[in-house]
C-alpha cells in the first residue's frame, strides 16, 4: 500500500517495528510522567500522614460536585478515545473524526468546569498565603498548595492532550489513518488515558477526605 510505505520512517525496517517502538516509547514516557507527578503525590502522602486533621479540614472546602462531574467527564472521554482507536483500526474515517472531536469537546468541558471551580476556590480565599482563610490551621495551606499545583499540572496536561487530539482530528479529516497505519492515534490515546488515570487518583485524595462529617 503506497500510503503505508510513505508512513514508514527511514530508520525502521517495517511497520510492525515502527508501531512497537512507538508504543514502547510512549509507555516509557508515561513512566516518566508517573514519577513526575509522583513527587507531589509523595508530598501529599507524607503531609497527610503528619497532619490528618488539618488535611481533613482543608479538603472540606473542595467542591465535590465539580470534582465528581469532572471525574465522570474524563472517564467518558476515555471511552470516546477508545472508540476512536477502534474506528481507526477499522479504517472508519468519519467515525474516527467524530470520536476524536467528542473527546476534545469533553476535555474542554473538563477545563471549563475546572475554571469555574478555581474561580470559586479563589472567592473562598483558598489560595495559600497572606489572604488564606483564617478559620483553617496553617498546615491546611500545605493541602491547598498541593491542590493548586497538582490540579494545575494536571490541567496543563489536559490542555496539551486537547491540542494533540485536535491535531489528530485534523489529520484524520484528511484521511491519513487506516487499519495499516494509525500509530499516532494509538499513542495519543495512551497519553489521554494516562491523564485520566492521574485524575482517578486526584479525585479521592483531594475531594473525599472526611466527607462524612
Amino acid at each position, binding site marked *: 500500500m503506497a500510503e503505508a510505505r510513505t508512513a514508514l520512517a*527511514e530508520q525502521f525496517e517495517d511497520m510492525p517495528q515502527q508501531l512497537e517502538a512507538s508504543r514502547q516509547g510512549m509507555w516509557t514516557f508515561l513512566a516518566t510522567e508517573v*514519577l513526575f507527578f509522583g*513527587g507531589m503525590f509523595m508530598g501529599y502522602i507524607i503531609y497527610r500522614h503528619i497532619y490528618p486533621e488539618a488535611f481533613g479540614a482543608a479538603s472540606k472546602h473542595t467542591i465535590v460536585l465539580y470534582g465528581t462531574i469532572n471525574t465522570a467527564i474524563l472517564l467518558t472521554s476515555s471511552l470516546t478515545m477508545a472508540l476512536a482507536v477502534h474506528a481507526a483500526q477499522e479504517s472508519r474515517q468519519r467515525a474516527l473524526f467524530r470520536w476524536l472531536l467528542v473527546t476534545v469537546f469533553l476535555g474542554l468541558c473538563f477545563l471549563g468546569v475546572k475554571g469555574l471551580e478555581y474561580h470559586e476556590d479563589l472567592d473562598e480565599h483558598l489560595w495559600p498565603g497572606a489572604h488564606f482563610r483564617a478559620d483553617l490551621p496553617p498546615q491546611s495551606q500545605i493541602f491547598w498548595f498541593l491542590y493548586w499545583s497538582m490540579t494545575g499540572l494536571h490541567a496543563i496536561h489536559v490542555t496539551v492532550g486537547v491540542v494533540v487530539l485536535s491535531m489528530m482530528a485534523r489529520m484524520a479529516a484528511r484521511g491519513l489513518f487506516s487499519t495499516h497505519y494509525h500509530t499516532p492515534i494509538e499513542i495519543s490515546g495512551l497519553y489521554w488515558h494516562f491523564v485520566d488515570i492521574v485524575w482517578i487518583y486526584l479525585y479521592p485524595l483531594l475531594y473525599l477526605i472526611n466527607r462524612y462529617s
Partner: protein
Amino acid sequence: MSTMTVESFRPVAQRKPKTYLTEGGRTLSSWLLTTDHKRIGILYLYSIIVYFFIAAVAAALIRLELLTPQGDMVTSETYNKLFTLHGVLMVWFFLIPSIPAVLGNFVIPMMIGARDVAFPKLNLLSWYLFNAGGLLALYSIIVGGVDTGWTFYTPYSSSFSNWHVVTMAAGIFVAGFGTILTGLNFIITIHRMRAPGLRWHRMPLFLWSLYSTSVIMVLATPVLAMTLALMALERIWGLGLFDPKLGGDPVLFQHLFWFYSHPAVYIMILPGMGVVSELITCFARKQIFGYHYVAYSSVAIAILGFLVWGHHMFVTSQSVYAGFAFSFLSFMVAVPSGVKVFNWTMTLFRGSISFQTPMLYALGFIGLFVVGGLTGLFLASLAVDVHLSDTYFIVAHFHYIMVGGMVTAFMGGLHYWWPKISGRLYPERLGQIAALITYIGFNLTFFPQFVMGYLGMPRRYHAYPGEFQIYHILSSAGASILAVGYVLPLLYFLWSLKYGKRAPANPWNATGLEWQTTSPPPKHNFEETPVVTGEPYQYSPEAEEEMVHG
C-alpha cells in the same frame, strides 16, 4: 608516509568517499538541523567542552583561593557561587551527557547494526533542550550566580539566597528533559533495532551499561524536575512544602532531591564501566571474563542504586531506623561494582596486554575507581559517616569516582573511537604522555583531600585553620598538572583533524559491528544490514601471541 603521497595516486572519482561528515551537506544548518545520530553526538561533544571549561575555570579559582588559609582572594559569597557553578555545570552539563550523549549517540546504532536511533528527531530535540537549559544556567551565573551549592537545600534555597536560584533550577529542569528523551531513545533503540542475530546476550557490554544508564535517566530525572519545580515555586510564591513556618519539612526536599541524585551518580559511572569493558577486552586481546556477571551487574547497579539515597542524609533529622536501612542497602550496592572489578582483572590475567592510550585510561580507571568505591564503603558506615560528613573526605571520594572514574573512562573511550568518529589517528605518543600526566595530576590533587578530610577539614569553606594548608598546596599543585593533562588532548585532537594519519576501518583490530564499517562511516552506517552470528569479544591472546612471536 604522508597521506598526501597516497592520495595523489588515487583517481579523482575515488578520492573522497562519502561519509557522514560530507553526505547530507556541510553547511551550518545541515548540522544544526541534522537527525543523524553521529552528527548529534559531535554537537554534544562541542557543547560539553564549553561547559567543562567554564566549570574548570571555577575549579581553578577555588584551588587558587584555597592555597592560603585566609579567605583573601574572594568573598565567602563569591566562593559559594564558585563551587555551586562548578558542581552544577560539571554534574548536569558535563558528566551526565558525556559518555551517553557523545559516545552513546555515536556508537550505539552502529554497535547494534542499525541505521540510526529509534527516534532521530527526538534526539535532536534533546540536544536543543540540553543547550536551552545550559543557557539558562549560564544566565543565572552572569546575573550574579547562585550560592546554595549544587544541592539547593531548603530552606536556604527556597526562603533565602536569591532569585537566580529560580533561573538556575529552570535551566536544570529543561536540560533534564533532554536527558529523559535521550534515555528513552536509547531504551527503545536497544530493544527494537538490533540487527538480526544480535540477541541480548550477544550484545557488547557497552550496550548493557548504556541500557541500564538509560533506565536510571528515565526513572530518576522526572523526580528531580518536580523537586526543583517545587523549590522554585516555594521561592516565587513564598510558601510551599518545605517551609517550617507552615509545618513543612526541609528534609523532605532532601528525600526528593537525593532520590534522583543518588541514581544520578550511577548515571555518571555506569557508562564509564561500559567503556572500560570494551577497552580491556580489546587491549588484552581476550574474551571478557564472566560476561553474564558483568552484564547483570549493570542492571543490579541501576536497580539497587535507587534504594540507597538516605546515605546522603545520615546527619539530618532522618530517623535512625531509616539510616540503618539505607546504610545496609548502600553496602549491598557496592557488590555489583566489585563484581565488575574482579571480572576486569580476570580478563587481564593471561591476556596479551598492550599499553596504547585507551588502555592506559582503562587501567587508570580500575585503580582509581577501586579507591573511590572503597572509600564509599567508609561513608556507607553510619557511624563513620557522622564524622566524615561535610568534610573533604566526601569531596575526595566523589572526585575519585567521577573524575578518576568517569572522566578517565570518557577520555579512554574518546581516544578509542576517535578514528571511527573523525577518520584520523591521534598522535599515540602524546596520548600516552597526556594519560600519564592526568593520572599523576589527579592523584596529587585528590589524595591529600582524603587525608585532610579525615583530619577534619570541612568542605565548602574558603578559609580554614593553618594546619591544613600543606594539603591544600599539594592539591592545588596537582590541579595545575591535571589541567595540562586535559588541555593536551583537546589540542592534539584538533590537530589530528587536519594533520592526523587517516584511519583504517579497524585500527585496533577490535571486534564489534562499529569496526566493520569505514572510518568515518557513511551516513547510514552500513551498506547492508549486518547479521550477527557469534559471541562478542572473540579475541584470542594465544593465537595472536603465536602470530607475533612464532
